């Protein structure tokens, strides 16, 4: 089996270009790769589109930030596609001020759009959002008497993912609720960068328990961050 290249977080950040569509795994930062985000923040890459479940935490009173919040704060994204920004006051401010374009997508729709993007589908039909503001500008199809929205598939340039254990072939096992969008985003992006707690030899993972097959993964990064 071919071994994946193990690179530093800084090298990983160097693979993300200005203007890239970046898919970031994580739910309130649980499942986001901390070292890659730090390096990408440090590097100051601009004009990116972020696709992520949420924009993590920014509390203006305590100034506490988690996950992707420092990159949002420094306006590294021109567009943010997300289901929830309720705990990041800065994303809300930038959206209301027209400084950053924010597209709000129901969480299940976002997951399925990404899955479709990685699975070669043009889109999905979902009942979620029918009769709401989400329906605006979208095609509504009636199938066996029930209404569905046509939601187009999404693909990205780079996926930034956190996993628990990888073998050197890039096979991944996640860690509890940090799995969330990782397995989906790994299938939907040109370049897939995975920060992991632990890297083991090929053959050490039970093939029956692998969640993301290594064929989807391009580079591994050994995390320095506290788990």
């Amino acid at each position, binding site marked *: 089996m071919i071994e994946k290249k193990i690179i530093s977080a800084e090298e990983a950040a160097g693979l993300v270009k200005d203007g890239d569509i970046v898919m970031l795994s994580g*739910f*309130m930062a*649980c*499942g986001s790769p901390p070292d890659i985000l730090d390096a990408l923040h440090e590097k100051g890459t601009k004009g990116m589109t972020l696709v992520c*479940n*949420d924009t993590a*935490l920014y509390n203006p009173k305590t100034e506490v930030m988690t996950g992707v919040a420092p990159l949002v704060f420094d306006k590294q994204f021109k567009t943010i596609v*997300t*289901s*929830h*920004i*309720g*705990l990041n006051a800065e994303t*809300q401010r930038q*959206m*209301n001020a027209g400084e950053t374009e924010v597209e*709000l997508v*129901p*969480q*299940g*729709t*976002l*997951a*399925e759009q*990404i*899955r479709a993007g990685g699975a070669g589908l043009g889109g999905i039909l*979902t*009942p*979620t*959002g*029918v*009769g*709401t*503001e*989400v329906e605006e500008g979208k095609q509504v199809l009636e199938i066996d008497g029930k209404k569905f929205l046509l939601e187009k598939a999404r693909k990205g340039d780079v996926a930034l993912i956190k996993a*628990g254990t990888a073998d050197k072939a890039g096979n991944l096992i*996640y*860690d*509890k*609720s*940090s*799995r*969330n*969008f*990782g*397995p*989906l985003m790994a299938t939907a992006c040109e370049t897939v960068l995975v920060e992991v707690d632990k890297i083991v030899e090929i053959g050490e993972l039970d093939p029956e328990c692998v*969640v993301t097959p290594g064929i989807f993964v391009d580079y591994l990064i050994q995390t320095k961050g506290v*788990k």
Partner: protein
Amino acid sequence: MEYKPNKEIIVKRIARFFENGDLVNLGIGLPTQVGNYIPEDVTIILQSENGFVGLGPAPEAGKEDPMLINAGAQHVTLLPGGAYFDSAVSFGIIRGGHVDYTVLGVLQVDQNGNLANYMIPGKIVPGMGGAMDLTIGAKKVITATTHFEKNGSAKLKRACTLPLTAGNEVDYVVTDLGFFEVKDGKFILREYFAPYTVDYILSNTDADILVPEDCKEVIL
């Protein structure tokens, strides 16, 4: 009679809905507290839409695992027999009709079962998260809310004026005044909670409320 908000009564009543083996998703905030009042002889399975079933109680202090949080980003535990999955599986469970009940918060709910609970234009725009999927997907939608807004008007409406989370999906509304079923374009008052009376509810709620003969007073 003076109204005093009482959130405990709401979650206590909702906790009595469930039967053994029901798969339940509790929304963020007040609905989460329902989990603390499940009767001892009933075992339900809780789903956390960020990716698992078998949601357990908060861990002991010092035993928090940053990789195990609920949808409200609080540290939780997994019960034996629980399972993790990705977000597509999680929302497949939700949209696919595998969740028996979801319990959701309310900004407005109307007599046609329309729910508005995710934004107030120009004021709060947090994003819908999983609320739209849960409202359309769960077999039964229970909404949990104090009966009145801060300005004194009932959150139960003839028609929602805020942007909808989903249309015609709400089955039950439980407030601190009573338990309503939503059916045929009306609220049906099934129970009213002491010390409030049917008259108090009717005269303080601008909506079509049917009071059937078997409507009963419940002390919680």
